[in-house]
């Protein structure tokens, strides 16, 4: 029976939260406008309670949607398309952000949390900033409203029934039809990083609203300076979370996807990168404003730009305008018009208000000295702005086509053929400058500098970085000028910021150390990226033993290697052996062979047909019933290196009915580098094995013959009394042939069975899938002492894999943690500053 009540309840909550956000916006607007103190207070309290109720219903929507997923109510489209019965509870949370409606809901939820914190912590600015908050909430709630006015659909509700979305004859026969299971969560998202990466990123995204709300409130109330102090800690918090969220995503991509890295300049990644980099610039200009009143206008522009870019990014990734340009693009829910209005309203309001107030905003006319902190920070912000501009210019290519089409001009512009090259060749120069500025800028922390003092300060860091980078340059053989410069600049930034940090620690001014710690983190990340991406080496490249040159065109070089099962192959300094398919069983350690189990009618249940011993312990026995994760297949690949201990990697492939073959790498983490291995291709698991026509062989014991090019022979024939699945009578006879197949470093045993039952001859063939061999024991010819065997062959099991070495990738991950530490220190310091004055 269809549970209509819960969906209706959810839908009512959505409508209520939408209406309440409008009401809250109106009340807070009145409170901001009205002069009378008493009335102001009343309207503020009114707005506050309306926002409380709004938040209450938002939580209600989240709870209802969770209950629909948790209780497997597959009559609802959202549960059907994002969940399934076997989904563990912690991944049910991930269902929220697999669908677009759910991710809007997450965003609305975070805005509620942030709004409530602001109401609690900042009473002075409450009314004007909450107007902006409530209006944003109304726009976001409208995205999941799911109502129609005169054929205009507003929003896409997460509470629509399956039968209202999908056209299927079954609903005509039985409108109350409920599928027994959902299509499940995308297996790539069934990963712990995917439980925490989206909420972190969305919280960062949501928090960009706070500095924006402050700047708009400041312009509105003509308080041009006071908004900065409360906005700074939030801007830093938002930047930190966006960085953390992006890097979690990068780490997930590195571990789970198989494009051979952690960042691919995909539009969805760029859509976070650009607002992030502009927000980094805005933090710096806001901090110099707090020091000496310069850069106010720049700060206003940057804070507004950050938020508008967030809206633009939302439009890009959710309107379907990117089409095929992105692998992650969400499906188009027909919200593009609504998203465009959202973007344009805030763009025009923000620009209009700034323009109106522009001449009132105080500025300083004095020229900034080259030997001041402001100058270097300002230069850094400019570089960041240009870096963001370049990425936006490239990512927006599909938008230019769409705009030109509006004017009747057909345009066939496509994204650059090599996106990574297009972006990185520009960004690397930005990174070099950022490293230099962030190293140098720190020296102006203390006192006024002049030329000679500056050179005195800089001499040692410059010298150290030149020496260290020359040494690395000699060892690693860096040949690109941009790489040499980035290496030197990165080390310079590291040394310069560490010098400052040590000084601060000596003076025991820990609270001021946030900046230098964060910059050390950035420098480490730049170095980690330089090494792991710039010097990654495909080690499965061209194994023929011929010399190859890096200049050879990519049409000629082979980056993959073909491995037949149990046939070792040399790849650079390694000897590789693919040892067969492995499975994953719930609660079973290691990777047991697929040969140990027999499938049952239930996809998730298997029965053991042999004992499994892992690290000397018997984990399961023949006959045990076990739970399998049927989507996952692992491929055991053994690496051997001369004189060094061998290790084994288990890259994974998932066969998913909706998405085809999905591969994930396995990574061997060595101190100086990661060895990254992924499957590129396997024999199609969907097609059934096609056997060749049988070949009959008459052979005696010990005689050798060939099957699929393998030396094969009968070791012995023995009478058996028990045959699985066959009842043997007194007159009946069964015999088993023990056949040995020699493959380079091991011997396979096949045991076909010959039966005479009720005076009829029969047989049970033996199959070795890995070798593509099927042998049937057809007859015994006692006079000649020979046995009749029929052999059939098919494709041997193989994998095609790619292996990449990523040097010093850990420097990137450690740098990330250092950056986060720096951000945390800075947030605490700036928040205390705000509290002291508030």
């Amino acid at each position, binding site marked *: 029976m269809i549970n209509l009540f819960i969906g209706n309840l959810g839908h009512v909550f959505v409508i209520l939260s939408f209406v309440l956000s409008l009401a809250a916006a109106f009340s807070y607007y009145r409170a901001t406008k009205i002069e009378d103190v008493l009335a102001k207070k009343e309207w503020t309290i009114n707005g506050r309670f309306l926002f409380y109720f709004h938040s209450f219903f938002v939580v209600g929507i989240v709870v209802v949607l969770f209950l629909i997923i948790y209780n497997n109510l597959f009559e609802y489209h959202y549960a*059907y*398309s994002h969940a399934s019965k076997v989904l563990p509870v912690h991944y049910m949370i991930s269902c929220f952000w697999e669908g677009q409606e759910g991710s809007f809901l997450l965003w609305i939820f975070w805005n509620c949390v942030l709004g409530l914190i602001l109401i609690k912590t900042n009473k002075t600015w409450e009314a004007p900033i909450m107007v902006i908050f409530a209006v944003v909430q109304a726009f976001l709630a409208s995205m999941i409203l799911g109502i129609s006015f005169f054929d205009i659909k507003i929003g896409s509700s997460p509470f629509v029934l*399956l039968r209202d979305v*999908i*056209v*299927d004859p*079954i609903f005509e026969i039985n409108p109350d*039809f*409920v*599928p*027994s*299971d959902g*299509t499940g969560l*995308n297996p790539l998202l069934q990963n712990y990083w995917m439980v925490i990466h989206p909420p972190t990123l969305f919280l960062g995204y949501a928090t960009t609203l706070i500095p924006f709300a402050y700047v708009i409130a400041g312009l509105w109330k003509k308080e041009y300076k006071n908004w900065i102090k409360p906005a700074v800690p939030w801007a830093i918090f938002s930047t930190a979370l966006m960085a953390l969220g992006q890097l979690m995503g990068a780490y997930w991509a590195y571990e789970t996807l198989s494009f051979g890295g952690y960042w691919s300049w995909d539009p969805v990644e760029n859509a976070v990168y650009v607002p992030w980099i502009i927000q980094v610039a805005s933090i710096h200009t806001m901090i110099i404003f707090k020091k000496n009143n310069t850069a106010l206008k720049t700060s206003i522009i940057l804070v507004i730009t950050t938020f508008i870019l967030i809206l633009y990014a939302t439009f890009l990734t959710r309107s379907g305008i990117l089409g*095929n340009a992105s692998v992650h693009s969400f*499906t188009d829910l027909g919200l593009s018009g609504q998203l465009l209005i959202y973007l344009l309203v805030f763009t025009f309001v923000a620009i209009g208000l700034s323009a109106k107030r522009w001449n009132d905003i105080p500025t300083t006319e004095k*020229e*900034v000295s*080259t030997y001041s902190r402001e100058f270097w920070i300002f*230069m850094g912000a*400019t570089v960041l702005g*240009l870096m963001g*501009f*370049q990425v936006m*210019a*490239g990512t927006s*290519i599909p938008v230019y086509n769409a705009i030109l089409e509006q004017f009747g001009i057909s345009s*066939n*512009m*496509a*994204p*650059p*053929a*090599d996106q990574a090259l*297009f972006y990185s060749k*520009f960004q690397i120069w930005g990174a070099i400058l950022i490293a230099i500025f962030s190293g140098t800028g720190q020296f102006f922390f203390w006192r006024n500098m002049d030329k000679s003092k500056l050179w005195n300060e800089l001499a040692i860091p410059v010298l150290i970085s030149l020496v260290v980078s020359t040494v690395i340059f000699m060892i690693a053989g860096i040949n690109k000028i941009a790489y040499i410069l980035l290496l030197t600049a990165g080390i310079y930034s590291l040394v310069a910021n560490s010098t400052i940090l040590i000084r601060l620690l000596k003076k025991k001014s820990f609270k001021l150390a946030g900046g230098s710690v964060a910059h050390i983190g950035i420098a480490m990340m730049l170095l980690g990226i330089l090494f792991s991406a710039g010097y990654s080496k495909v080690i499965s490249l061209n194994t023929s033993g011929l010399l190859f040159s890096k200049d050879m065109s*990519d*049409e*000629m*070089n*082979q*980056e*993959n*290697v*073909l491995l037949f099962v149990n046939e070792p192959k040399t790849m650079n300094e390694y000897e590789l052996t693919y040892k067969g398919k492995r499975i994953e069983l719930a609660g079973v350690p290691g990777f047991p062979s697929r040969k140990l189990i027999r499938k049952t009618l239930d996809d998730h249940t298997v029965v053991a047909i042999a004992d499994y011993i892992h690290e000397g312990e018997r984990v399961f026995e023949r006959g045990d019933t076990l739970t399998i994760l049927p989507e996952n297949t692992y491929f055991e690949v053994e690496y051997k290196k001369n004189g060094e201990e061998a290790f084994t990697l288990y890259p994974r492939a998932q066969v998913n*009915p*909706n*998405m*085809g*073959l999905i591969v994930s790498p396995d990574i061997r983490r060595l101190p100086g580098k990661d060895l990254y291995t992924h499957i*590129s*291709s*396997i024999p*199609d698991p969907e097609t059934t094995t096609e056997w060749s026509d049988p070949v009959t062989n008459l052979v005696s014991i010990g005689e050798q013959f060939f099957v699929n090019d393998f030396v094969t022979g009968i070791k012995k024939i023995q009478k058996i009394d028990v045959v699985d699945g066959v009842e043997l009578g007194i007159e009946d006879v069964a015999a088993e042939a023990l056949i040995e197949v020699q493959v380079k470093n091991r011997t396979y045993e096949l045991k076909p069975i010959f039966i005479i039952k009720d005076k009829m001859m029969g047989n049970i063939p033996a199959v070795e899938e890995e070798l593509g061999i099927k042998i049937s024991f057809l007859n015994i010819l006692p006079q000649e002492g020979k046995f009749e065997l029929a052999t059939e062959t098919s494709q041997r099991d*193989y994998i*095609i894999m790619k292996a990449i070495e990523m040097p010093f990738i850990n420097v990137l991950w450690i740098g990330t943690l250092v950056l986060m530490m720096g951000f945390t220190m800075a947030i605490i310091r700036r928040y205390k500053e705000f509290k002291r004055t508030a």
Partner: protein
Amino acid sequence: MKKSHIIGIVVIAIAVFVIISTAGDASTYVTFDEAKGLYESGSGKKVHVVGQLKKDERGEIVGVEPSKDKLTVTFLMVDNNQVANKVFYNKPMPPDLKQSEQVVVIGSYKEDIFYANQILLKCPSKYEEESLQVRAVN
């Protein structure tokens, strides 16, 4: 001239450079004939061609040939102008190639063969469910 003016001019110059280089590096969506024209005129620029795998009268895909060592693949693709051409891809065959509804190849011509550096596949119901997959009826 003030320092801020010099910086302003440099920033504008870089911004103009970015716009020009974006326009220059942007690829284009073309047909096989146009791509061939580009090759014959000596341009090595990589382009996007959109199309489908070639099918025979019975609707079966023809012309997909992985190399003997399985490390590369060639296939026949029909572009949106119904022109068929041989495409060479120097990587193992993507497992879902034959299931794809639409293929976008990015690369350039050499002689009569289109060398694809990258293939984008649009597969039916890859990220969405258009029809119901009834597994078992309660």
